């Protein structure tokens, strides 16, 4: 089968790989119908996630048709069209029982700090992902969800990560009616976080980025204020000024380790790898939030070493909340929102690119070429 194949930093190609097999009685094999490239794939693409091995297939946002199921699979059957949450979760461990599906303790042997994620290095379990014609889906009784009748697969594929992650970012912000919410990062997740902030009753939603076309997109899609940090001077001072010198009630970091905007962070984090990526967006979030405010982090950071202004967290009495989205927990509510037209995820998709052209797709997305917001890869066997 054809699959995306990682060859090293900034080098990927589509090549022939063996078909995935049932390796556990709760496995399913799906024929992939849609798979997206995600902003967090760029951390892998740039070579900044440790234990990203050459030959791996990325892709944690996909939908597919069930081709084969293991002997213990009861919740889905051959022929079902399913959306597959990016977290691999057993449903049995103490964390799954708390609905923390992003923190499963039975899906990632290589690290305890993060659960298993499709196509996300060995640090997240060593699973091949969905940027392929076929994918192995473990714990098929837990994650995969049959796409509701009448739902567009383009909407469904964004329910695997972007929508729940954006929604949970807003939820973790503990937004109260009338709150001012600032989202750092106008990528798909940041845009969705801004959009969802309104659902929690935000009074004002602001998004900060440095790419004008993304800001324009966010302004239209999420009906929020959007500012280019290259034009507003120090973004922290700007946020203070525009909130009557108080700071925002809630700040959301939807950027993570690839952040631009601060030379020191760029050099130590992204060039010299002295810390696990640049923490610029997190600095801005901590320093722009009101005293007693909440910082919600969904941007992906690498393991263990980051230079975080923890002194300001203490002095300002900030609550920090962060997690991988618990997709399965949120799905019922979000499916409802999509069906009622409250959320329109597929509007984020700007590019449809054949899997064969995966190298170009990564370049277009990572270099922000051609006004790309969200690319979806279509495999030759998608059949739709």
């Amino acid at each position, binding site marked *: 089968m054809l699959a995306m194949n990682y060859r090293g930093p900034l080098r990927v*190609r589509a090549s022939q790989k063996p078909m995935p097999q049932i390796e556990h009685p709760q496995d399913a094999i799906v024929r992939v119908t849609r798979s997206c490239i995600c902003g967090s794939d760029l951390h892998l693409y740039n070579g900044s996630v440790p234990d990203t091995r050459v*030959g791996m297939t990325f892709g944690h946002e996909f939908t597919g048709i069930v081709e084969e199921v293991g002997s213990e699979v009861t919740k889905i059957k051959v022929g079902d069209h399913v959306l597959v949450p990016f977290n691999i979760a057993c449903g049995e461990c*103490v964390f799954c029982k708390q609905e923390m599906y992003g923190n499963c303790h039975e899906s990632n*042997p290589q690290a305890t700090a993060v659960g298993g994620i499709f196509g996300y290095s*060995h640090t997240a379990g060593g699973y*091949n992902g969905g940027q392929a014609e076929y994918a192995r889906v473990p714990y098929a009784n837990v994650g995969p969800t049959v796409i509701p009748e009448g739902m567009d697969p383009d909407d469904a594929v964004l329910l695997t990560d972007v929508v729940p992650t954006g929604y949970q970012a807003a939820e973790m912000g503990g937004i*109260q009616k009338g709150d001012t919410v600032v989202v750092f990062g106008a990528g798909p997740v940041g845009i969705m976080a801004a959009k969802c902030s309104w659902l929690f009753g935000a009074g004002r939603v602001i998004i900060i980025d440095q790419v004008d076309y993304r800001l324009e997109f966010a302004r239209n899609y999420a009906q929020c204020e959007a500012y280019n940090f290259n034009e507003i001077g120090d973004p922290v001072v700007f946020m203070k000024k525009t909130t009557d010198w108080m700071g925002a009630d809630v700040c959301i970091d939807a950027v993570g380790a690839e952040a631009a905007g601060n030379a020191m962070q760029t050099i130590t984090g992204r060039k010299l790898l002295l810390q696990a990526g640049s923490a610029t967006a997190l600095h801005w979030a901590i320093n722009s939030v009101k005293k007693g405010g909440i910082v919600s982090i969904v941007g992906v950071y690498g393991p263990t070493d980051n230079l975080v202004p923890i002194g300001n967290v203490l002095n300002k009495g900030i609550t920090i909340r962060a*997690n991988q989205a*618990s997709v399965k927990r949120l799905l019922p509510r979000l499916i409802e929102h999509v069906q009622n037209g409250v959320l329109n995820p597929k509007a984020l998709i700007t590019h449809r690119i054949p899997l064969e052209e995966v190298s170009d797709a990564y370049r277009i997305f990572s270099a922000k070429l*051609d006004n790309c917001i969200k690319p979806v890869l279509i495999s030759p066997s998608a059949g739709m």
Partner: protein
Amino acid sequence: MENITNDYSHIKGWGIDADPKNDPTYPMKKRNNGEHMGYSWTRPTLQPETVEVLHSIERPNVTAVFGTSTPPSGLSGMIRRLAFKKSENDYGHWLPLILADRINVVEGIIEDLRSGIVPNIFAEKGMKAEWKHNRSGVIRQMAVTAIIAYGFVAFYRAKKRRDRGY
């Protein structure tokens, strides 16, 4: 303070998920006594270990299910095995993994050549797309590279001449 209008009628679904007790909603509200009982849940069926799986020393075993995408191999694999003797809390775990990743890239090229594939690095980097959508950027980059290269050549030529005492 800027004027905050209280009319959100243009935003579909405004406030429908508002919850005054959303502070913090999750995961605290779902906590139970399970986590006080340690590693005691009924484990799912165990996946047979048909490939070498490294596991964090912060857990006693391999998880019930794991990925089998690319087992450790070669020099990079040896480094990875050593890295997994250190905890996730230790630089001695993460830094060797990053080093192993870099070595693995070279191993990948060797493996390609061995199987008769000459990796088309230009294509793998998606330069076709860059050329299509950002031609001026590519040209600028090439020009800068050429100027720097010319500078080096000119400098060393001049140096040679100086050394010969012209």
